[in-house]
């Protein structure tokens, strides 16, 4: 098991390096000369040249890339052009809001999505199943940011129950978390239903039933245990998408998270801050995937033996 964890950790490194290279390459396509942008169009060519040298923009991309990686390993993602503060510090000051949003949302997703999926599968074609599947279908088709706006109109403007924006109290998180979680919960519900239905039809469930095992025992020990595996992987992937999806939600609810930081940075053409935020996001997603992968092997004994044997 330890060997497997180590191997997975090592696999993370080339992916992260690739992600950083890709993002730097994309951001390098930005038209215009950074120094001209910083100094304004009235700056002398000498001053521009000097600043470009100083910031390392005259080096080949690979050298810049190596410098960036070495910096990133020390927690240095460069300096923001707008505020002249370190990018990493700026991101960390905003990170708690985004993280809270994503973590609360994934919890809500699991709490709503998994049980509803199980019930829908057990009571297949019942009224409850029909309602759940149709509502899930609707929620997967809603644009998240628009759902947020509609909830603001209903709960903040019409009913006046909840605040429209900001991050002051726990009440501020109710609408954004629900907005972010609802479409994901719908997806997880549909997936849980499908995997449950697959296991319900399987031979080992029939065997368990013919042996006279109690219905609840069959559901928990035989069906759920097998059906939950793909759901766990999917929750991991969705967590990454939630971190990304938070971008629109933070905008709708004017929350001061990384996403709003990044969008402002894009408007201000603050390249180090944009690159830094995207690299930070991607790293978070990679680490989540790793944790999920490890969790997956921990729950499924079949995978554990497979990985320890396969060299």
């Amino acid at each position: 098991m330890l060997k497997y964890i180590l191997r997975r950790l090592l696999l993370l490194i080339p992916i992260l390096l690739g992600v950083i290279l890709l993002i730097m390459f994309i951001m390098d396509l930005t038209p215009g000369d950074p120094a001209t942008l910083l100094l304004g169009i009235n700056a002398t060519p000498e001053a521009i040249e000097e600043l470009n040298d100083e910031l390392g923009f005259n080096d080949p991309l690979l050298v810049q890339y190596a410098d960036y990686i070495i910096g990133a390993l020390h927690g240095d993602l460069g300096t923001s052009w707008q505020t002249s503060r370190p990018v990493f510090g700026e991101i960390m000051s905003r990170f708690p809001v985004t993280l809270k949003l994503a973590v609360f949302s994934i919890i809500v997703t699991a709490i709503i999505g998994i049980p509803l999926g199980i019930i829908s599968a057990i009571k297949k074609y019942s009224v409850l199943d029909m309602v759940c599947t149709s509502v899930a279908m609707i929620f997967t088709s809603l644009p998240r940011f628009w759902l947020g706006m509609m909830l603001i109109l209903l709960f903040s403007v019409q009913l006046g129950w909840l605040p429209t924006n900001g991050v002051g109290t726990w009440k501020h998180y109710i609408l954004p978390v629900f907005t972010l979680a609802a479409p994901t919960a719908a997806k997880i519900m549909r997936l849980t239903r499908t995997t449950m239905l697959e296991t319900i039809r399987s031979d080992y469930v029939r065997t368990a039933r013919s042996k006279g095992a109690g219905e609840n025992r069959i559901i928990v020990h035989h069906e759920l245990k097998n059906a939950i595996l793909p759901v766990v992987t999917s929750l991991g992937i969705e967590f990454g998408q939630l971190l990304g999806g938070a971008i629109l939600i933070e905008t709708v609810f004017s929350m001061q998270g990384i996403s709003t930081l990044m969008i402002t940075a894009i408007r201000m053409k603050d390249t180090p801050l944009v690159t830094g935020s995207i690299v930070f996001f991607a790293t978070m997603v990679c680490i989540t995937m790793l944790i999920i992968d490890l969790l997956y092997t921990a729950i499924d004994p079949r995978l554990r033996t497979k990985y320890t044997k396969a060299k």
Partner: protein
Amino acid sequence: MDSKTATVSVDIKKARKRRSKEIIRRFRKNKLAMVGLVIITIMILMAVFADVIADYEEGAIRQHSDQRLLSPSWEHPFGTDTYGRDQLARVVHGARVSLSLGVFTTVISLGLGGLLGAMCGYYGGVFDEIVMRLMDILLSIPTLLMAIAIVSALGPTVMNLLIAITISQIPVFTRVVRSSVLSVVGEDYIEAAKIGGSKDLHIILHDVLPNAIGPIIVQGTMSIAAMILLAAGLSFIGLGVQPPQPEWGNMLNQARDNMMTHPYLVIIPGICIAISAFSINLVGDGLRDALDPKLKN
């Protein structure tokens, strides 16, 4: 070609025809899917005949300072926006941009990603390994984030939006097509075609893809809905279609300031996005059940 192989190929054609007839029959029996098909057809017709419904320059672009923020009425069924433009005109012309973005990005990324995926699945080996590792890298950046990075670097235009969404979607199709191809590549008839001396490209196009197409069609349909949502999201944060050109996402963005007092300005474009995505998803679900009855729960 001797007479024997000729009969065989005619038989195959007949069998395929029978199969597609069966698929269409199953699809038509699915009420929800048919409802979806009808709705999305109406939306597409609305986009196609946008010019008949409302003039682009006069209705959707020109600002009328004396008709600002009018509530829905006979003259303006969807009201007017903060610049006095008729919202109905903007919604139908916005449909053109939003729907075609969804279709084009899916078609292009399906073409490119599909080709890569088919080659990976068919050849395997080092090529497969390298491409799949590259796709792993692309997939570890959330779709929206990837698209944001590309648009922010290239600049917010419709063309760049198309490129960004397409690139962010390629790995998804590479994976789907690869696994579909892998599922048939070991079959006897593929081996037979290889032994028969057919060229690789011929085998991929004539033997592998027709047998692996089911999941690809379903994923493609669902992807159109997801891409419409993604394009609208990007335009909403100002990184997509730029005003004054109407698009459902940027209409929502422009209406934000007035949404408390004039809610119809945000409700209507949002419903258009949701209905389009919903009906396409219904069609996708129906196609999945029709193509593979085994999967139907």
